[in-house]
């Protein structure tokens, strides 16, 4: 798994590539956490290149979301493939977060 962070206006775009599972999720969570601690509390998760997400990956997202909540921040998602969308849907995450078709659209949510 690879994670890259790009600042776009008042938001931070987090692009995840590869697999988010028990092996990689702790690293993903700690990288996001340190950015949140630096004051980046509006996140856009760009999942274009995410190939697989397991329960461990979902849990890391939930933990990040809880942390953001404490900091009055937010995370939204964009560019989910069919399989990833399916996992989000069966885990009930689809009713907790907002989803967008592109990074630009996801960023718009924070500009309003």
């Amino acid at each position, binding site marked *: 798994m690879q994670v890259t962070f790009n600042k776009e206006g008042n938001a931070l775009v987090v692009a995840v590539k590869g697999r988010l*599972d*028990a*092996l990689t*999720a*702790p690293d993903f969570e700690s990288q996001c956490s340190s950015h949140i601690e630096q004051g980046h509390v509006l996140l856009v998760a760009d999942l274009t290149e995410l190939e697989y997400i*397991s*329960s*461990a990956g*979902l*849990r890391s997202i*939930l933990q990040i*979301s*809880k942390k953001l*909540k404490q900091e009055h921040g937010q995370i939204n998602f964009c560019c989910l493939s069919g399989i990833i969308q399916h996992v989000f849907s*069966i*885990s*009930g*995450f689809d*009713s*907790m977060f907002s989803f967008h078709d592109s990074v630009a659209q996801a960023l718009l949510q924070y500009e309003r």
Partner: protein
Amino acid sequence: MKTEVERLITVIEEVANGVYSNDIMEFTKPGYHQIMQRVAEAVGMMMVKVEAREHRLEQLIEELKNLNDQLKNNILKTVVTIANALGARDNYTEGHAVRVAAYAVRLAKRLGLPERQIEHIRIGAVLHDIGKIGFSDRLFSNQDFRISDDMLQEIRSHPQLGINILKDLDFLGPALDYVHYHHERLDGSGYPCGLHGNEIPLGAQIVSIADCFDAITTERCYRKGRNCSEAFSILRDMSGTHMAPQLVESFIEEVEENGVIDGSKEISATTSDLHTLLAEG
């Protein structure tokens, strides 16, 4: 393999007991038997699903709390607006309603009543005289202390008039009773229903004491306001016959400890003053 299975079962039991952690995810890593990985992933998914739902519920509860606060605030604004309608006819009544609410809330808090009941007492007290809006002009403009029988009857009709006005506002709940019964007396000599003792709701008894105290201490066109010790002595005369002694004593203690509300400030109370005083009360 056997100890690994036993460890997995222990972790699953922990999840079943509501202990959520990353322990279950360990068994989804390479190196474990494929069946154990599948079981662990399935249980892990269930766990995350439950955790996500709990988190969502917490969020919803928070949203509901915020909406409820907004709603309460709007109710209070509505009530103050209604009270202001009476204030437009009679300056004394406007300041009086707000002061009575502040005194009543102070007594209710001193008695340790639940927050919800205190809110109803606050609202009942602000509205207690709203029925006077139906009074004829002669009662508002009267400079003469002599009151005829039919004027007395008109004055005594105000709790019922108030209820007639407010009865469809369901959200007022018990506050309606406090408006209705704030002139009832323990010995049954009050109006409009002649209720006795505990038939009179506690909130109405509290509003009644606050009402009397403010009426005694406020200057009116036909007489000067009395000082606190005179007012306490009048309340004590009414104690036992008109008012519950323990309520009268608690009220007196409250005023002795925390003082009277500055009447001159509130007589011409504007809406914002009303809000401030209501919030402080």
